[in-house]
């Protein structure tokens, strides 16, 4: 299976309680539901299309509970999201639950990375992770993510749980596609592209122009600024980003 991660993010990377306030979690987060003003037909269609492509779901405990409570109540046969979420297999990662009751859901126990790798080997189609930030970071650590679908919303919250929180395994990604919704949500599709290259490696690759790179990197360091002092070879082929 191909493992895809879908995440709704603020511009400062927060992923918590995007759809509604969740005071029952008692986590002190008071800005739940921040996504709602931006949820338009474009976002609706994008996310519905993504879910329509799912063959199974892999969920962290919190996202599982949220989804199970909500989607098990949606019985409209015309809602393609509800049909798939209710019917398809759901693998749930939890250290606290001892059973799961939502239709066709099952706990993944034991060696998480090993179990997920086994699912990916044994089954076909698309295994989708939604939300589940902690789970995503574990999957990243073991190189199990095949695609990221990030919906970046035009809002800064200043606090809240982040998808790529401290301790995230540094990863380089390849931009596959960008879509913009009518309310300014940027949907970015990325696929893993190994580890990040760092300055020293980049300087080596640039061969004859290493001489300049010390000062250029100094300039970059000082401000995060666009001060490119030389060109580098053509970028990787196969880029499919839109603009």
């Amino acid at each position, binding site marked *: 299976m191909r493992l895809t991660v879908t995440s709704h993010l603020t511009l400062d990377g927060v992923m918590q309680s995007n759809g509604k306030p969740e005071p029952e979690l008692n986590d002190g987060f008071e800005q739940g539901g921040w996504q709602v003003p931006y949820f338009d037909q474009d976002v609706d269609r994008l996310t519905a299309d993504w879910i329509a492509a799912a063959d199974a779901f892999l969920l962290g405990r919190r996202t599982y509970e949220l989804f199970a409570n909500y989607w098990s109540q949606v019985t409209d046969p015309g809602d393609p999201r509800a049909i798939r979420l209710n019917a398809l297999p759901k693998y749930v990662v939890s250290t606290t639950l001892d059973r799961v009751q939502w239709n066709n859901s099952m706990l993944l126990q034991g060696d998480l990375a090993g179990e997920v790798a086994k699912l990916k080997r044994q089954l076909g189609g698309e295994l989708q992770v939604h939300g589940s930030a902690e789970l995503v970071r574990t999957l990243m650590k073991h190189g199990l993510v095949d695609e990221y679908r990030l919906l970046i919303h035009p809002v800064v919250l200043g606090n809240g749980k982040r998808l790529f929180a401290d301790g995230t395994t540094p990863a380089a990604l390849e931009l596959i596609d960008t879509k913009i919704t009518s309310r300014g949500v940027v949907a970015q599709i990325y696929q893993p592209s190994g580890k990040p290259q760092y*300055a020293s490696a980049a300087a080596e690759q640039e061969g004859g122009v290493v001489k300049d790179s010390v000062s250029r990197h100094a300039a970059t360091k000082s401000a995060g600024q666009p001060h490119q002092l030389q060109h580098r070879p053509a970028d990787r082929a196969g880029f499919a980003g839109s603009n």
Partner: protein
Amino acid sequence: MRKLIESTFVTLGGDVGAPQDWGPPYLFGPEQDAYSRDLLFGADALLLGRKTYEGLSAAYTTMAAGEPGPMADFINAMNAIPKYVASTTLTEAGWNATLLGGDVARQVAELKRRPGRYLLKYGTGSLDRALMADGLIDEFRIWLVPVTNAPAQRLFEHVDGARLVLTGTRTFSSGVVVLTYVPAEPAGQSG
């Protein structure tokens, strides 16, 4: 009335603190150079925090003394352009810079009232809190770099919150997407 535009590099993980590490494979290239030139050459002056000022002035003074390369025009413009530097500690500045002490937001508001094109602020940090509280930043160019590195210093870490409006995107073949935002609430109301 001049606008204030802020341009910043950030990873998907939200780091603005170490672009010298993760930035080079993505931020250097003909497309990015052209974009950077347009942004700088359209500005009347730079607005810099103290740390940014110290780093850039040292680096660009050094680069100007080297052999001219393909970005010589950019380096010359960086050295020549007037700068305003916010600092509570510096007592004098070189590099064609004027110090802003005391109430920086009020002084920036005054600078914006002067005629011209726009002020360009490189980098993001503690200065943003006061500027954004007074609605003084009119536009953000967020260079989103496709690595997940978590923050040494977080984008908008000094800011409580803000609603923005996406007004443009520019995708470079390296996978960087420059997101252009303006505040949802109009700026400049404090002046």
